[in-house]
Structures are given as C-alpha cells and as structure tokens.
C-alpha cells in the first residue's frame, strides 16, 4: 500500500453481497491503482465488473446490499468531493439531465455550488475539450449516441475528476462514433493526467489507450493483472473463453443448434419456395451491395440442398421505399429515398449504417408499423401495412427481436415466454402445439437455457435474456426474422448463439434481416446493405458557440420569452376568474378576450386546434351533465343558459393554461421554480430531468406494444382482453422505468447530486419588464369576469 501515491486508488478485501442473495457478487477483491494509470478491466459477463466500478465511485448503496472491506482514493473514501470520481454508463440517455447541452454539462458544477460565471466558463471549456459538434444551446435529447456519450464525458470532466470510470461507454455505438468517444477520453486523460478504469467486452481501440489490464474471474477475483500486451499474450485463450473480444481473434464459431432433427414437424414446403440465389435484385446507389461469396460451408450446403423454384414470391421485397423520421413540431427528417431490397427465402441480409441512419425505422416499416413516404413493402407477396392488421398472419410471417430483449417479456417464466406466440398461433391445432412444445425443448437445450425454463425472465442476465428472445421469436419458424442490433454489447458466447440461430432459421428456409453495427455479424450473413447518412455530423469543423445562454426557440411567440412564473400567473388568474362567471354572456365576452390575447402565446396552427379539441369535448360533457343533473331538473328550460355558461366557464378555466403549456420548457420552468418560487432544489431538478424523458417513455410504450403485436399477442376486441393487454404494457413500462431510474440516479450521484441540498444555477431566472405585463394580463383575466358580472347584474 505504501507504493500507492496520495491520489491513487486502493481496494482492500472488498466484498459485496446484494440483500437476499446467498453468494456475494464480489469477494475479497484487492486492487491498487497508481495515479495516472489507465486500466482495462475485463472479465466474463456477471463477474461483477459494474459493481466494482460503482464501489470505486463510492456509489454502492447499503440499502441494496452489504459491503465489506475498504476502498480508498487519495487516502480517503471515494467521492468526498463532488465529482472526484467520474462515471460514464453504457446507455447515454441515462446520463442526460438537462434540456440543453450546456446546461447538462453545468449540472455537476451546479451541484458543487460553484458561482454561475465559473459554471458557465467550465461548461464551455469542457465542451471544447470533447469537441462537441453543436452549440451549448443544442437540445441534449437530439443527439446521436456518440455525441451523447461525449456530452456525458464533458459533464464528468466539468467536475475535474481524479478518477474516471467508464462502464462499456462505446458498447452501443457504431465504430466511428465509438472511435470519437475513445479519442475524447484519451485526450482528456492525457491533458488532465486522469486515472482511468475502462470496462469493455470489445478491446480494440482501448488497447492503445490503456497501459494495464486486469482480468476478473467469478466473484471479482483477479485472474490476471499486468501490462496490456503481456496479459493479452498470456491470457489469450482464457479471455476468449470468458467471451471477451480480443482483437485479431477469429470470429467465434457459430453455435450449431440442431433442433430440427425430428423430421418436419409442420408443413414447411411453402417456405422452401426460394427464388434463384443469383437473382439478387441490386440495391440502389444509396445502399451499395456487397456480395459475400466466401460463405462458411454451413450456409453453402443449405443453399445447394434446396432447389430454387422460379417465379415464387420473395420473403421480403422492398420497392422504391422512402422513409422519414418524425421530428419535433411536425418537422420530419428524410432517412432514405428509393430503397430496393429483395430477400429470398433462406437468405440473410445485414443492414448497416451509422446511428440515426434509419435502420430501426426500416425494420419497423418492414413490420408494417411505420408508414413509408413512398414505396411498398411486400412480405411473401403481401403488403406489410395490410398484414399488420391481421395479428395472426403477421406473427406467422414476421418475427422481430428488439434491441432491448427485456422489451419482449410478457410472461412470468422463460418457458411460457418462449411458447407465447405458438400458443396463440396454434390455439386450435393441438398437434402443432405439441410439436412446438418439443421443438421449444430442443431449442432451449441448444441455447443452454433449459435449466432456466421456470426462471422469471426479468431475473435473467442480459445475455440469457437475449438468447431467450431468440428462442421466443424463432420457435414458430417465421418466414422473415428481423433482428435489431442483435449482437450489440454482447460477449462472444451470445454472439455465437445469435449467428447460430440465424443459420438454423436460414436452413429452415426463413429469411433474415439484421440491422447492425457489427462487421463480424455482417460478414457472417449473405449480403450487406449500407445506408448512408450525411445529415448527422459526428464532429464539426467550425467551432460552435459554447457559452450557456437563455435559449429562446426560434419563431417563438412573445410568451415564450417571459418568465414561466409570470405565465403561470396568467393561467392561474383565468382559472380563479372563471369562478365569477355567472352567465353565458359574460363567459362569451371573457373568452373573446382570451381569443384576442391568444396570438401572443401561440401561432395559429393545426396542432393548436388539435390540442383544443379534447378541451372542447370536456367542456361539452360538463355542459351536458349540467343540463341533466341540474337542481332545476333534467332539461328544464332554465337549465339551457346555465349549461351554455358552464361550457364557456370550463373553456375559460382551461384554455389559457393549455395555450401557455408550449411556452413552459422544463429547463426554464425548473429554474423559475427553484430560484423564484424557492421550492426545494432537488425535487425540482429531478422533476425537470424526468419531464425530458416523456418522449422516451412514449417511445418505449410504443415499442412494447409493437413487440407484442408482432408476436401475435395483440389483444382481441373484447373488453377484458384489452384491459389485460394494457395492464401488461403498463407493468412492463413500470419495470423499464424502475430500471432506468436506478441508472439515472447512479449517474446523477456520480456528478455530485447526492449531497446537493442547495445548488447554484448556471443561469438566473430573470424577471424582466415584460413579466410585469404578464402579471397585468393575469390581473385582467382575473378581474374581467368579476367586473363584468357586477355590471351585468
């Protein structure tokens, strides 16, 4: 321990056992790091690498488990100073806390209660350091994965850490984005002399940055420790056995699951109608094609084994397809134009392209969920948008493994999960159902999951969940299998399972379309289509403006420039004023006043009117109930003007608030609530971080629903079925919510949020003369009904 300098990290006999687990995830871990050392931490999935990183950051929570032993950084417990230990996570979205890039970087310094000018200066300096391609006013949710990771790095560096921990920071990224993140890390480490600990499955790119490699075995025991190239040389086989991707190693041998040895278990003949192998309709210039002539023997044999039947429909035909991604405020972004793909039965195509180039959208379109701008998708000759309306035919035709296999979970045991689609499809064909059962057993044995058949799918490891997902989507032998990033973040074992299952499905005559960043996977498939995308720059040539300033969206209305507290006072004024509306004439007059003022808050547009429709319906419902349930008796002649008044009163109560909502962005609202209204800082900041995620939560809900539909689990029309369906979706959404909340909490605490009861704010919430005008409007909307009513009576 004497060797370890004052700023080094020392771990002594560290153990960690989560409550309720008999075996500890870490036991007797000893590790010493000198200041400035750069360590690559590798090990099999489940060896406790992530837990060890959290221990190094001082972020293990004793309500979750029991910690033993000692972790010291620079002579004291880690994290004494906010941001002393920086932590980057795999999923960059978990680290976003603020609406705009600059404010996101400022989060840590704000927690450390630094003065606002210092915060702004630091944020700008760290954005420069990571070569952030946009200005400080860019929306942090509108970034590619690589850009988000660099923003997350900037947020960490802004607190000037001594130790930087990276938990698979490039696992979800494409090669180019991963390289920019690694370069930013290397630069920061060079400039600041950071101690670095990197956890990764894929070592390429990190070997040049790190100087030491530590290999963890089960329970966090150190199997090897030494200079990177020495450990790499000595432990090559052990590393490969642990599933680690060592550069230069050949691709893993695909698993050869032999699950159709029992003869044809149901009629497969129509799937063997393959078109000529050599008749591959070329992809157009935006999607260049690559022929993979030198295929492994396995697929080659299958190709020769099945005679081509000319003239039959291809498994998938994409004709002249143009797609756009939905954007904010109705602005959509073109993803691809005039795309052609033709996929014969038994063929496998990899779709590659950068993050954001539209790979996932293409898969959703093929499944019939995303309407294309132009062109057509035919699945075995039938239009996808037609098939999507027939859940059973859709499930028989297409299967889809989502990027996050936990989105697939609908059942409480692994076996039931794998059987779910077949149970639906073969509900009235017991023989087929029985055949599916025996096939399920063979598949689960082949994938090494049979002993887990009764396990709760949520309790499985990520790799097990992915294998379960594969089993669940291929059990019913779909004609087309869609895979969304099936190997991202996976070790070699799971990789070989994925490729093995793809080959087995091909052998049965199923076609495969895989969206991926993984070159090895693409090499293992028949062909590759490249989607190009030139609209998302990873880095920029010119230097953007990194100064944090108040962001006013271009084209905003006068209301968008006012303090949110002032705007809220308007809504409140109208709401209180609405109680003084005694007759419909006054109601009509004051509502006219709102209509006159409305252009100051919103530009008249279709979306504004769409927002007002539910309000109008609600007001009419209230009017109706006033008519029927009035003290004057149902439909009394005197009840009619009263009902009219009620409709107008509700509109006056609700409409001003509805019109002002778009002018209340979470960031400025939370600044105002914390600084102006002096509400407790922590809940306000967290609430605004959560409101940023509304879109993400909506997307997750949509994905959960689509995954169920494509698995044939779409509810019928009956009321109980619908209730069960939506209840199951709600449950899955909540599980996802709890998971991501815990990741977000770790990331926020790593940036000093844990101890920050009071914070400073990078920008003041200013009260300007125009806010007094808002207040005057609030008084007007409050007083108008009172004054008019008193005049009228």
């Amino acid at each position: 321990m004497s060797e370890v300098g004052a700023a080094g990290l020392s771990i002594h006999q560290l153990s960690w056992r989560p409550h309720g687990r008999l075996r500890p995830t870490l036991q007797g871990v000893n590790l010493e790091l000198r200041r400035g050392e750069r360590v690559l931490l590798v090990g099999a999935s489940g060896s406790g690498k992530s837990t060890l990183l959290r221990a190094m950051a001082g972020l293990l929570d004793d309500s979750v488990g029991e910690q033993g032993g000692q972790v010291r950084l620079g002579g004291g417990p880690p994290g004494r100073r906010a941001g002393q230990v920086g932590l980057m996570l795999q999923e960059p979205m978990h680290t976003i806390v603020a609406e705009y890039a600059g404010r996101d970087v400022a989060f840590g310094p704000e927690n450390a209660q630094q003065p606002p000018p210092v915060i702004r200066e630091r944020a700008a300096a760290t954005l420069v350091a990571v070569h952030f391609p946009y200005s400080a006013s860019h929306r942090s949710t509108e970034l590619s994965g690589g850009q988000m990771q660099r923003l997350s790095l900037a947020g960490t560096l802004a607190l000037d850490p001594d130790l930087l921990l990276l938990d698979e920071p490039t696992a979800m990224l494409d090669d180019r984005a991963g390289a920019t993140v690694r370069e930013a890390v290397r630069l920061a480490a060079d400039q600041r002399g950071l101690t670095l600990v990197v956890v990764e499955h894929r070592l390429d790119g990190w070997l040049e940055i790190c100087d030491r490699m530590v290999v963890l075995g089960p329970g966090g025991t150190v199997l090897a420790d030494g200079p990177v190239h020495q450990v790499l040389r000595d432990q090559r086989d052990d590393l490969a056995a642990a599933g680690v991707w060592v550069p230069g190693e050949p691709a893993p041998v695909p698993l050869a699951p032999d699950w159709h040895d029992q003869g044809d278990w149901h009629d497969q003949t129509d799937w063997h109608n393959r078109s000529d192998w050599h008749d591959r309709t070329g992809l157009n210039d935006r999607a260049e094609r690559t022929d993979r002539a030198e295929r492994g023997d396995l697929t080659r044999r299958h190709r020769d084994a099945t005679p081509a039947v000319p003239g039959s429909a291809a498994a998938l035909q994409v004709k002249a397809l143009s797609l756009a991604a939905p954007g904010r405020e109705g602005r959509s972004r073109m993803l691809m134009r005039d795309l052609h793909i033709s996929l014969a039965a038994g063929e496998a195509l990899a779709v590659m392209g950068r993050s954001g180039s539209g790979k996932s959208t293409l898969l959703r379109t093929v499944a019939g969920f995303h309407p294309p701008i132009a062109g057509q998708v035919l699945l075995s000759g039938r239009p996808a948008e037609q098939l999507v309306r027939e859940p059973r035919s859709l499930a028989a035709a297409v299967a889809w493994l989502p990027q996050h296999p936990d989105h697939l979970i609908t059942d409480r045991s692994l076996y039931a999960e794998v059987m779910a689609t077949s149970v639906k499809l073969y509900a009235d064909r017991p023989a087929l159902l029985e055949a599916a059962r025996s096939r399920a057993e063979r598949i689960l044995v082949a994938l090494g999951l049979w002993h887990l058949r009764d396990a709760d799918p949520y309790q499985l490891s990520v790799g097990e969940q992915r294998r379960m997902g594969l089993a669940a989507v291929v059990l019913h032998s779909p004609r087309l299998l869609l895979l969304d990033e099936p190997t991202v973040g996976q070790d070699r074992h799971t990789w070989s399972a994925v490729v093995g299952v793809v080959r087995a499905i091909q052998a049965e005559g199923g076609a495969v379309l895989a969206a991926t960043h993984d070159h090895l996977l693409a090499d293992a498939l028949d062909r590759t289509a490249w989607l190009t995308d030139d609209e998302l720059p990873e880095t920029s040539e010119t230097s953007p403006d990194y100064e944090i300033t108040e962001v006013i969206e271009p084209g905003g209305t006068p209301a968008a420039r006012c303090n949110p507290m002032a705007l809220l006072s308007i809504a409140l004024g109208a709401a209180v004023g609405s109680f003084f509306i005694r007759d419909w004439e006054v109601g009509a007059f004051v509502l006219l006043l709102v209509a006159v003022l409305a252009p100051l808050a919103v530009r008249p547009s279709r979306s504004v009117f769409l927002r007002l429709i539910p309000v109008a319906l609600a007001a009419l419902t209230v009017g109706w109930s006033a008519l029927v349930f009035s003290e004057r008796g149902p439909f009394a002649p005197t009840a009619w003007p009263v009902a009219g008044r009620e409709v107008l009163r509700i509109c006056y109560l609700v409409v001003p608030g509805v019109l002002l909502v778009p002018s209340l962005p979470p960031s400025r609202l939370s600044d105002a609530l914390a600084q102006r209204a002096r509400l407790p800082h922590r809940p306000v900041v967290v609430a605004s971080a959560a409101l940023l995620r509304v879109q993400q939560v909506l997307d997750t809900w949509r994905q959960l629903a689509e995954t169920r539909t494509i698995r044939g689990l779409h509810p019928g029309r009956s009321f109980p079925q619908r209730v069960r369906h939506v209840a199951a979706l709600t449950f899955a959404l909540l599980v996802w919510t709890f998971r991501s909340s815990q990741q977000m909490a770790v990331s926020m605490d790593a940036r000093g949020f844990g101890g920050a009861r009071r914070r400073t704010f990078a920008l003041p919430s200013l009260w300007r003369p125009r806010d007094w005008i808002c207040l005057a409007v609030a008084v007007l909307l409050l007083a108008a009904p009172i004054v008019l009513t008193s005049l009228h009576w």
Partner: protein
Amino acid sequence: MTASTREEPPRSDLATGRRAAWRTVDLITAVMIGVAFGVAFIGWGQVYNVTTPLFAVLPPLSGLIGGFWWLPALVAMLVIRRPGAALLAELVAASVEPLLGGQWGISTLGSGLIQGLGVELGFLLFAYRRFTVVPAMIGGALAGLLETPYEWRLYYSEWAAPYAAIYAATMALSGALLGGLVAVALVKALAATGVLAPFPPGRQHAEQRRI
C-alpha cells in the same frame, strides 16, 4: 452499514436512514413513476373509450374509475416509503398530462396536489410506519373524498347535491379498490421481478426468498 441512531432496531420494511432524507434514487424513481403513469394513462384511453357512453348517460358514475388516477401516488408511496413520495409522483403525473394534451389543462395540477395529499393522509394516519393494504386503501379512499369537492366546484358545479354524493361515494370506493388494492398487488408483482432492489419492498422480497 450505517448504524441507526434510533433506539429500536431498523425495520427492513421501512426506508433506510432518516425518512426525510431522500436518496437520489428515491427522488428520480418517484418522478419517473409519475411520468410512466402519465404515459400509460394515454394507453388506457382505448379502454375507457368503452366506458364513455355509460358515463355520458350517468356522469357521477365516472367516479368508478377515479382511483386509477392516483395509482402513481400509491405506488410511489408503497415503494419509496418516505413522506411526500405520493405527492411528488402525483404532481409529476399531473404535469405530464397537460404536456401530452390532457383535456383539463393545468387544472389537473390542482387535482394532482389534492390526490397526492389524500394518499399521504392515509399513510400519515399510521405515522408512515405501515405500508400495507390498509393504509393504501384508506389513502386511496381519502384521495377520492378530497378530490370530489374540487371537481364539483371546478367542473360540475351545476350538479345537485345527491349527484355529488354519489360521485363522492364512487370515488372513495374506486380509490380504495382500483387505487389501493391494485397498487399493493402491482408493487408485489414488481418486487418479484427484482427491480425494486433499492427499496424496502424489494428488500423484503429478497429476504423472504432467501433460504
């Protein structure tokens, strides 16, 4: 382990540490529960659509599904077990609704406040030391009873008193059953998935499973 300064030994069914000292994971979970339910409520729209004609004929019966709206408050309190969890989650759920185009605009914030407080009251009656089905059902019912006058005054001021009384009764009943009971079942099922590990229900579940 941090030593408890209280004289009694720490109970595993209560939140660790001082109950007013919220960890970050408590805060972020409470607000994300609000967001998730705010989104899920839209999904439930396809289910309520079926009930709409019934409630159009007899609006006071719409109270029968009322308890649903304060599920975020109940779930947050049953999971996090700190005073204020229900209020925070419900306020966030109520802010998500107008963002997503809710029909009542920002007056849902008032409902969120009242429903959150109602649920808090249910647990306050037990000094925030019991997080079982009884306080959950009482909290759910209280939220319904408190919400009724707010809605009566705000939206249905023309209703005669008997109709408002029916509304209060249906809201309280729904709050206890559709709110309280469902929330307890939901939290139990969530604990079984392992995602509640940092919270008392997850800890209890882990302890019970241990052999």
